[in-house]
């Protein structure tokens, strides 16, 4: 016997307690609460599927779900393509490349709050971007005051912050693309564009799918970018609110409708779990390659 029977449980106890109390228990509690009319002050009666029926008739829910889905659809294509192009630029070891790679990663380590505030200032009606627009002869654009432009601006911020992160993933994958494939293609007279589509893209497909899945999950979860760019309001009339923002605003505070917020959370969970499972599956396949 190498240890007493209870020893492993002493090792596991802190981790099990934290994950049990602060992840799994709230999770089960959320599912139970979703079928009640619980308020922030507690209590709540079992109300069956009332919350879900209400949700189907709630225009705010549909708007928020649509915004989250649009957000996801908007950030995935640029986050799959642009970091790949940057990784190809930064892949070749040329003098000073370390400095470039480091600089490209900097937005990743800054918090979304810092990034959000920086871009709020850049996109301000009198900010740097509008100054440039004006200098080029255009008129000022309400990047943060129009609900559609606010969503697009937030997407730009998400993409900007993700460039360096996904670049690193692509750099690792590019290092594994066999060199002889490129050389063979070159001997056959394929130019750089042809080689990109016929050699690079096919060998990177698993990574591209992984990046798509990761950015989709994160895109659907968006909160901070829109919260900060709209100054906490969710845009004019709350028109740019996302699902996570809606849950936060419905469930929080003394007037919080915990039951309804929990039902919204269940929907969020089901969608995210679907996306997460796809990611895990793809990730596992990635490991085997």
């Amino acid at each position: 016997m190498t240890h007493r029977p209870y020893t492993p449980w002493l090792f596991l106890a802190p981790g099990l307690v934290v994950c049990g109390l602060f992840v799994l228990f709230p999770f089960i509690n959320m599912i139970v609460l979703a079928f009640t009319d619980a308020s922030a002050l507690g209590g709540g009666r079992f109300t069956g599927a009332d919350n879900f029926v209400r949700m189907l008739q709630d225009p705010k829910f549909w708007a928020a779900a649509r915004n989250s889905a649009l957000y996801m659809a908007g950030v995935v294509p640029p986050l799959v393509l642009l970091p790949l192009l940057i990784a190809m630029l930064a892949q070749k070891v040329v003098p000073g490349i370390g400095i470039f790679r480091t600089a490209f990663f900097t937005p990743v380590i800054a918090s979304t709050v810092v990034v959000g505030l920086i871009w709020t200032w850049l996109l301000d009606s009198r900010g740097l971007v509008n100054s440039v627009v004006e200098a080029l002869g255009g008129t000022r654009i309400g990047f943060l005051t129009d609900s559609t432009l606010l969503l697009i601006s937030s997407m730009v911020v998400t993409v900007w912050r993700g460039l360096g992160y996904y670049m690193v993933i692509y750099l690792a994958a590019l290092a594994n693309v066999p060199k002889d494939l490129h050389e063979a293609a070159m001997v056959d007279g394929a130019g750089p564009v042809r080689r990109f589509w016929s050699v690079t893209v096919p060998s990177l497909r698993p990574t591209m799918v992984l990046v798509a899945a990761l950015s989709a999950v994160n895109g659907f979860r968006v909160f901070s970018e829109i919260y900060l760019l709209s100054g906490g309001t969710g845009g004019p009339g709350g028109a740019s609110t996302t699902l996570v923002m809606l849950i936060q605003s419905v469930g929080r505070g003394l007037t919080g409708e915990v039951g309804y917020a929990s039902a919204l959370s269940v929907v969020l969970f089901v969608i995210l779990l679907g996306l997460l499972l796809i990611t895990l599956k793809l990730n596992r396949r990635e490991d085997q390659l």
Partner: protein
Amino acid sequence: MKRAHAFLALRYLGLLAILAISIGPFLWQFATSIKGPNEDVFVPDFFPDDPTFANYAAVADVVPVWTFALNSLAVASVNVVTNCLGAAMAGYALARLRFRGRRFAAVVFASSILVPFEAIMISLFLVMRGFGLTNTLTGVVLPGAIAALNVLLLRNAFLALPAEVEEAAIIDGANAWQRFTRLALPSVKGTLVVVALFSFMFSWDDFLWPLIVLSDQEKYTLTIGLAYLQGTFVQNQRLVAAGTIIAVVPLILLFLLLQKHFFRGVGEGAIKG
């Protein structure tokens, strides 16, 4: 040969363009933060006429920004210690000890990874209130104190160690705790550094949970303190800019010192996203 030169020049041109896009916004924020009260911050000028650090002192008069920073530092430091130690202990038990119920424990951690924070935040707030821990820094730390992902990362690191050394230690009469602290832990230093870094960064950058659980200004961490500062004093961009620079500089320094571990962490933690 000329063609190769042209390609190299093009590559540098592209790299410089991305460089400008990546760090330009930070530089603009820094430039704004050192502009004096008489200089128009709306004029697109990266080089202040009369640079001053007075805004960094002034921001502390408006909100207790140094208290926010200390709160963030406390939360992030505790988070690093609890994650490194707690996740390593659990990971070690899963990888190295044989016992009944190991599968069950592994399932608890694996299923915890699948629960997105955003889905349980409201319910989690109620749990914290039940413990009387809302509006405390303890309440901020606890939910992420031992992340399941870190448990699994460390479990994998321990699994990769050769079994022979430990078998020798068992024959020498070392107990499980001694084998853990003296043999196993020093051998997974690389993974521990990654866990520590990402725990620090995650905690320092976290916004949504502190926003939900904290209500008194003196308990604020930097992230929600800054959002609050922006809401109150939009008219003085110099102060908001100074505040953001205060929040980002520690992480940039940490990153410059330990960048290879950051890059490694992206690979290992890719699932977490």
